[in-house]
């Protein structure tokens, strides 16, 4: 049955994967502790944003790359996500740009 072949191919890889998952888990918990600790320093807003978003991006990439397997995904998925990222950026920055470039200010 083709179904079982599909699984059999992966069963050796999978054991390797499991070790990666545990490592990512530890890294995620460690990064959470770091970002929370930094918040207790009560930095001013700009450095606080930089540190917090940097750590969040690292954590997000770990989840995306390993738990969601984006590290070895098909081109088509990358294309969809790239397109989404571009429009996401437009949605983030263009309204903000409009607010700072306003004639009524």
């Amino acid at each position: 049955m083709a179904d079982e072949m599909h699984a059999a191919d992966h069963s050796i890889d999978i054991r390797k994967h499991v070790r990666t998952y545990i490592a990512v888990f530890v890294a995620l918990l460690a990064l959470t502790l770091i970002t929370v600790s930094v918040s207790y320093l009560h930095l001013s807003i700009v450095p606080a944003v930089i540190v917090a978003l940097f750590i969040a991006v690292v954590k997000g990439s770990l989840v995306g790359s390993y738990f969601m397997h984006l590290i070895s995904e098909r081109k088509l998925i990358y294309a969809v996500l790239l397109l989404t990222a571009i429009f996401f950026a437009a949605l983030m920055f263009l309204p903000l740009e409009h607010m700072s470039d306003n004639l009524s200010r």
Partner: protein
Amino acid sequence: MEQVATSHAHADVHGNHEESGFWRRYIFSVDHKVIGVQYGLTALLFLFFGFTLMTIMRWQLAHPGEPIPALFFVVPIAAIGILVFFASGFKPSINMLLGALFIGMAGIVYYLTSGDERFPGGIMLPEFYNQLGAMHGTIMIFLGVVPLAVGAFGNFVVPLQIGAPDMAFPKLNAASYWSYFLGGTTMLVSFFVPGGAANSGWTSYAPLSVIATTGQTMWLIGMIFLITSSLLGSVNFITTIVQLRAPGLTFMRLPFFVWAQLVTSFLLLLAFPPLEAAGILQLMDRVAGTSFFLPSGLVVSGQPLQNAGGGSPILWQHLFWFLAHPEVYVLILPAMGIVGEIIANNTRKPLWGYKSLVYATVFLGFMSFIVWAHHMFLTGMGTTISTFFQTTTMIISIPSVIILTALVLSLYGGSIRFTVPMLFALAFLPMFGIGGLTGLPLGLAPPDIHLHDTYYVIGHFHYVVAPGTLFALFAGIYYWYPKIVGRTMNTTLGKIHFWGSFVAINFVFMPMFIQGLAGVSRRLYDGGQQYAHAQGVLYLNNVMSIAAWALGAFQIVFIINFFWSLKRGKVADTNPWQATTLEWQTPTPPPHGNFLKEPVVVRGPYDYSLPGHATDFIPQNDSDHSR
């Protein structure tokens, strides 16, 4: 395994999916063809209803302050309903259901044209005029055109054209239709709540919409259903087109209509969620008392509003137009796809510049995400950001012109068959041209400041959507009707419908440019009577109203043709238009699973009039080179 003998020969190899009974066959089906027809019929009813709302508005514009002749609007609809209902022979059938729905619609229209909270003494209240304006726009766009263009044609035609047995996720497809149905029902019910339906325009600009009556809450809930429906649908369409193409059907062999649907689905997928977010935020503002869109220090009817403040009305506009501009292309792209199919078929020639059409469509889709703020030049936008949006807007007109040019050039040298679908498709070209070109001044800030919110804008986008998109959709109905029903629609009635609509619709929308250039605002309840600068163009109100009612009369010709041809139309064979694409290479109506055996595609979509062949068309799956 349940195998039911049906009237048309089912040669289905996997008979275990057979449905039985009226309810499972027609109402709770997961077959893409049935869902396509459900979408189509529901959307056509909503289109007719949304159109009727407009005809009521036009009474007020032409005869402000005069009592409305309610029966003038109610009787034609009731007559259609009674005719269709009685013609069904009282057997539970689609016709009986549609007849009942028309009678119900007549009831709603009667309710809407009477009653002291709308028409005290038969004279329309301004508040009710605002409801009609908001709901006409909402119903036509979100409940009429998009469900017809994407839900109906996309569902019925796309899987057939790509040689697929069904959509990739059939149950999701049914869920998508029922979510649309719930959204539509919510919108209809909102007319009956205290204060009536939403009345802040189809754009629902804050803060007006936040302080409006209960109808606005219903509008938001309805929109959330409709957005969910579109999201489920677009996930399904993209997956279907990418994954279920028949062997040999490469992307560059896809019919143009499929490309148009693919790009449209991406627009729906990525542009609708921000409006969903905005809808949730406005719902929070209305229900939970937040101030996302309410600025500080707002005073309503002389009373300071008790709210936290600090919100931004402009934020609503950004989130709204982030959807609503791509939405314009959601309205037009499937129409262009339909016109492309029909032009290739009726000129008996391949489409001119297929590849440039495809690339232009993809580029158009991409650009449509970064032009939205050209709707917002009047929000005090600075020069940097307005330059950006003016530039992108001028850029996006290029692919539109490429598409239109390629379609016009496709006519050159063809031996054109002037069938009814072709007439509508041909009319689409200049009508969309007018709509598109009149949009250019609106995309540039200096003229937009003069023209913003005038009838010029109404004229512009109605030329795009009404004689543009809707004509293309009518073309599609006449074109694919034989595949759905097995009979062609009556040609004479079709031609009356076409020529009548074509003349009337130009008398409705062309005068709007004149009024708009004279500075008549789009939201005036009396059509501009109280303004000195409007006096010179007031006579046009009457012209437009008479033309609009005439337009309605010609749609009744279409409705009669639609029902008459179900039983009495000329019987059509599998491929009545002698077309090349795959939907015509399977029995009519297509069996469950669509094809008797999996089609293998060996050629491009439009192999018409190839030299050295006995016929002037070669189907995409025809590998016989000897003919």
